[in-house]
């Protein structure tokens, strides 16, 4: 192969696509912007859905939560597909290394009294919660208006099934390489009285018509549950000699911190919207008032299981977290 230096540099005629220069001025655009802004069709739809003749194929009225300009929200992480899969590939790889380390040092077998049972009954069954969360987010991916929002929901949906699989693998490791503990965890999910409030809550979110309200409902549980399982319990593990669990929990709390960045940015965009801000605030406050009691009940059940095996003050933690969430989106907050 022959190389030659090109002596002529050709001046670009455009820095990026027209919609982006119209929006941001004549500057180059990032790959995130080129791949995410204005991608969804907005007008001249040919046919109404047979499965929902009341709506257009893409329709802002699929939710009470609206943005005047859907692209006033962008993902603070600027994730498009390539950085997304790259980041998650690292997450799954790191998680796998953690598991092989735990296996090689038999750290799961060395967990102190009560920990294995608490994990098997309270943490591993959350793989079903995550599977439900996947469906809730996938609905948002279809029905949200605008690419930047739905793209976050799309990755969140895939992340949730990914997390369900991480928890399942942790369950396999906890059980020394078989899937019998997963079977038991499923039975807990289906039958354990303390998990039924959570299961009922998830199932009810699945019939929530407004994708955004469903997502807020999910987030209420997330904020309590992730705090409980992967922060509060993680600290207890470190103090209580269950470092093996902490190695697992770090991946989940790390994911949740990343996830929160776009969720919080979306709340902010909804509340700040010039035209819809006030009605968004009312809708959000209404959703919290309606859903928080059920969400609290749901996570309190998980906490009870933990408290039954370990004295780590799980229920108290949930009560405190719930009180903190009650004022969310209240006026003048």
């Amino acid at each position, binding site marked *: 192969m022959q190389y030659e230096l090109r002596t002529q540099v050709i001046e670009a005629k455009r820095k990026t696509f027209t919609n982006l220069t119209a929006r941001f001025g004549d500057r180059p655009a990032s790959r995130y912007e080129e791949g995410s802004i204005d991608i969804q*069709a907005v007008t001249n739809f*040919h046919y109404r859905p047979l499965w929902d003749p009341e709506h257009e194929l893409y329709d802002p009225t699929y939710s009470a939560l609206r943005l005047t300009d859907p692209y006033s929200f962008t993902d603070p992480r600027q994730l498009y597909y390539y950085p997304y899969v790259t980041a998650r590939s690292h997450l*799954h790889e790191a998680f796998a290394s953690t598991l092989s380390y735990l296996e090689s040092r038999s750290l799961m077998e060395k967990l102190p009294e009560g920990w294995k049972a608490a994990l098997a009954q309270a943490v591993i069954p959350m793989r079903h919660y995550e599977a439900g969360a996947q469906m809730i987010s996938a609905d948002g*991916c279809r029905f949200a208006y605008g690419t930047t929002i739905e793209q976050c929901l799309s990755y969140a949906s895939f992340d949730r099934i990914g997390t369900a699989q991480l928890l399942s693998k942790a369950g396999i490791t906890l059980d020394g390489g078989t899937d019998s503990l997963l079977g038991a965890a499923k039975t807990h999910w289906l039958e354990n009285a303390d998990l039924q409030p959570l299961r009922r809550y998830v199932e009810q979110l699945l019939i929530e018509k407004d994708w955004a309200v469903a997502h807020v409902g999910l987030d209420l549980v997330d904020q309590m549950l992730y705090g409980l399982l992967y922060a509060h319990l993680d600290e207890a593990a470190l103090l209580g000699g269950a470092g093996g669990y902490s190695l697992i929990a770090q991946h989940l709390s790390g994911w949740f911190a990343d996830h929160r960045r776009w969720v919080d940015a979306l709340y902010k965009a909804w509340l700040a919207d010039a035209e819809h801000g006030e009605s968004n605030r009312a809708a959000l406050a209404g959703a919290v008032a309606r859903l928080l009691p059920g969400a609290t009940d749901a996570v309190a059940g998980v906490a009870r299981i933990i408290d039954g095996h370990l004295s780590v003050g799980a229920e108290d933690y949930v009560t405190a977290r719930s009180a903190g969430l009650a004022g969310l989106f209240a006026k003048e907050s």
Partner: protein
Amino acid sequence: MAAPRKLSMKQRYAALTHDLDWDFSYVDNAEAYPYTTFEGIKIHDWSKWEDPFRLTVDAYMKYQAEKDKRLYAVLDSFAQGQGHLSLADAKYLNAMKLFLQGVTPLEYQAHRNFSFLARHLNGPGPRFAALCQSQDELRHAQTEIHTLSNYNKFYGGFHSWHHQHDRVWYLSVPKSFFDDAVSAGPFEFMIAIGFSFEYLLTNLLFVPFMSGASFNGDLPTMTFGFSAQSDESRHMTFGLEAIKFLLEQDPDNVPIVQEWIDKWFWRGYRLLALVSQMLDYMLPRKVMSWKEAFELYFEQQMLGGLFKDLEYYGIRPPKHVQHAIDEKEILSHQVYWTLYQFSFAAAFNTTTPDSEHLQWLAEQYPDTFDTLYKPLWDKASRMVEGGGRHFARALPQLCQTCQIPMLFTEPGDPTTICQRHSIYEGERFDFCSDGCKWIFDREPEKYVQAWLPVHQIYMGNCGGPTVPDVLAWYGLQPGDNGEYAGSQEALDWAAWHTTSHAPAPTPVAGN
């Protein structure tokens, strides 16, 4: 990967996907899955869905990240090395403009609707497969945008692709195709896109196209295309699995699925009319003719292979397939001849084929080209020599279903335009073929809604009454449209290649 030691790939896959699902007891199943009964499809056992790939999220992430790493490395180095200068010719990019305006938005629509399936199918197996596909489709949309973004910096026709997809006349063909699929129920969507498009027809779109990119020095497109196709093989599996699953679940599904195959074969085939002319007219260096591609990828592989397999279930080849076979000798010529005349209103250029190109067409189409189409080009060339250019002066009649101008001819009579119509609630609707009429007559309530560009222009909904008004509303920039010879693009290309050393041709794999 830390694969659990004691589980096989199959068991691991089941534990990590299917086993996550549970039967709802606090809400009614019909309320949780509201969209899977109205189409009349009967499913008795969702667990019978097989996913041969047995892909889990970790493996998905690992391989997709690797694929994109390779792809973006190619994009970056191509941009840094001014790779666009080593294309066969700037006019090659007309094919890519059409691709970005016409195909990329469909990838994006597929992303959204596979997510619909990832929520609303009752079974965890197909939900997970749909979820992966939803991600893949977003990948395809974005990698296409990023691949073509570099060309946008130097060439016209790329800059307003999404705006144009919602508005421009020829783009209503792909848009209405996908709107049709997305507005259908989840099972019809699976057959429409998963099966008919991804399995039956996708090779006709992608493989020759990407080989074309390779032949014409477009390394980024070739790389993204083949990379996308590696996902596509998963999608083909989804489509094939979908059809077998539906057919095996209940004999009552067979006639419903057959009608969907009939409909979506024809709908997809009409859409591919745009591809036929890309192969035969838009690629400066030819890979294969439309006829050859159609024979290989459709007649041999699908009719000769797949449909023999589906016979077992009582499925026959698509209803109007013979018409498609008969058209293979004439299709691309009719389509490009139309685009040639209407390119003043398009975001790409067209031009008269040169003598070498005419010779190639005559060789590829010995029974039709010299007798039917060469005389037209000879006359068009005489107009050019006389300082003119053959452009249409009026808006064309459109087919109500496929929305393509009524340019197709009667079966067996290549000089008479085929005209079909139906009267529905006192109004006349026109069709280009028996296939499109049949589709309308099945669901007239749907197709009467079609946003037909010509009718909308006449209603005053497209920027104003004059051609410049409409072109401004389309977002065309000077030089995007019309004749290629003498265009800004052609002049730039010539200038870029006379003042510098002609770059060494980009090496392509396979040489």
